[in-house]
């Protein structure tokens, strides 16, 4: 944990978990989608559902989807800005189960180029967030480091190809996680790095036929 996770982030009120964390989740979802969201179906779980309105959780999630940082004063009017920009957002209460953190949400996004994304994430306190799943793949990301997310075919040797590319450009991998739903089907790999993802890396990865899609995520503000 960085000192700036404890003192910080600078943010627009009123709640670090319900506002800043929610804005970060929205922002992460926008990066993962890799496109401007055109519509969003957002389920609010637990305390997000119970006290989300008073904490501006809805406005913060919308602000994140619009690309706003947690300290962007436009969050206060994000729902109006989303509506004006043609972004359709539908909120509802959902129950993700007792084992899921009380400040959690499920976002289903659609964007340009028929991209879709389903993200389940929790705001775990002080503005820090954690993903529970991305498109149904169980992957835990915190958004603190530069991150590369790869949607790919589950094939032997996939990871050695990917890590060879990082080794070739001397990019240090902080963490790497692969998740799959079935054997030899689609899988998802998330790589956290100590430095921004170099264009060479994205270029080399996009030439791998087993990679279906990739998303680059900078450290969340």
């Amino acid at each position, binding site marked *: *944990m*960085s*000192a*700036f*996770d*404890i*003192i*910080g*982030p*600078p*943010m*627009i*009120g*009123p*709640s*670090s*978990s319900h*506002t*800043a964390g929610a804005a970060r989740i929205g922002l992460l979802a926008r990066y993962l989608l890799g496109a401007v969201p055109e519509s969003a179906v957002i389920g*609010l779980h*637990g*305390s997000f*559902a*119970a*006290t*989300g*309105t*008073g*904490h*501006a*959780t*809805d406005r913060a999630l*919308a602000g994140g989807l619009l690309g706003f940082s947690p*300290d962007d*004063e436009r*969050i*206060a009017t994000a*729902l*109006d800005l*989303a*509506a004006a920009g043609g*972004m*359709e*957002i*539908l*909120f509802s*209460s959902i129950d993700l189960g007792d084992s899921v*953190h*009380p*400040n959690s949400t499920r976002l289903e996004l659609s964007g340009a180029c028929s991209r879709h994304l389903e993200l389940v994430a929790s*705001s*775990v*306190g*002080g*503005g820090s967030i954690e993903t529970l799943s991305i498109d149904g793949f169980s992957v835990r990301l915190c958004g603190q480091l530069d991150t590369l997310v790869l949607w790919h075919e589950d094939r032997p040797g996939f990871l050695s190809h990917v890590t060879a590319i990082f080794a070739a450009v001397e990019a240090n991998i902080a963490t790497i996680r692969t998740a799959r739903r079935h054997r030899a089907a689609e899988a998802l790999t998330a790589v956290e790095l*100590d430095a921004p993802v170099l264009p060479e890396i994205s270029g080399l990865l996009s030439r791998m036929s087993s990679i279906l899609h990739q998303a680059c995520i900078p450290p969340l503000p």
Partner: protein
Amino acid sequence: MSLHFTKAAELLELCERRGESISEVTLQREIHESQLAREIILRRMKEYFVIMRDSVKRGLSIESLSPSGLSGGDARKLAAYAAGEAPLLGAQFARTMAYGFAVLETNAAFGRIVATPTAGSAGVVPASLLSLQDSHALDDDGAARALFTAAGIGHIIGANACFSGAQGGCQAEVGSASSMAAAAIVEATGGSPRQAVDAAAFALMNTLGLVCDPVGGYVEVPCVSRNGMFAVHSFLAATMAVSGARCVIPFDDVVIAMHDIGRRMPRALKETSEAGLATTPSGLRFRPAPPRSTPAT
């Protein structure tokens, strides 16, 4: 030498072996983890302190009520009272409270604050440091250093318990903030790392059990007044520590207790507004509307 610590006992040992303060050890750890230059890290913390001071200034000028109607204008009243004739316990007492109120009033008005460690508890540490600037020779560089003392204590709480009201109640938010502030006050005024950790223990010990039952789900009642009152609480804890009052339950154990109490606390009293102040007859009048979808259906 490793700068790893998750317990106050480890932090104190590091301080002793290196002959350094909590703020210095925490700063060194940040340099190591981030690989950024010392000046860059210190500058960033100083920028955060400036945002904190701006949030106090803005809050002191608020005259109107917040959008919910639950707060607004009280920081100003307290500051005026502090400036009046013979305020109770002296001007600094009411002024410290005013600063804590001010940050949370800014927060309720969708203004910019620094979550320290959370938004609902963002007034305690800034109020304590700004109050010290009024009474002691503490410049902005010193305040930024004091924020590293606070971060060191917060790091231990984060590693062993949590900061979220939804998980641990208000003790995890304002309790954490107050123990961070108490330690910062001690180090900023020349106290030892041991005294700082004891101050953190006294502050947290006396916030155990504090529930999170915000009226209407808004971070206003009781949050605004609580931030003012617990800024003063931090000075009480610091006073106990530097006086040498005996700390029977050490900080690490108080954190364990906070975590334990947080887990046992009913969900209705952890930021769901399903009990306590939120469901009193007067509290229910501020019950929130369900989230609004766009475009309006």
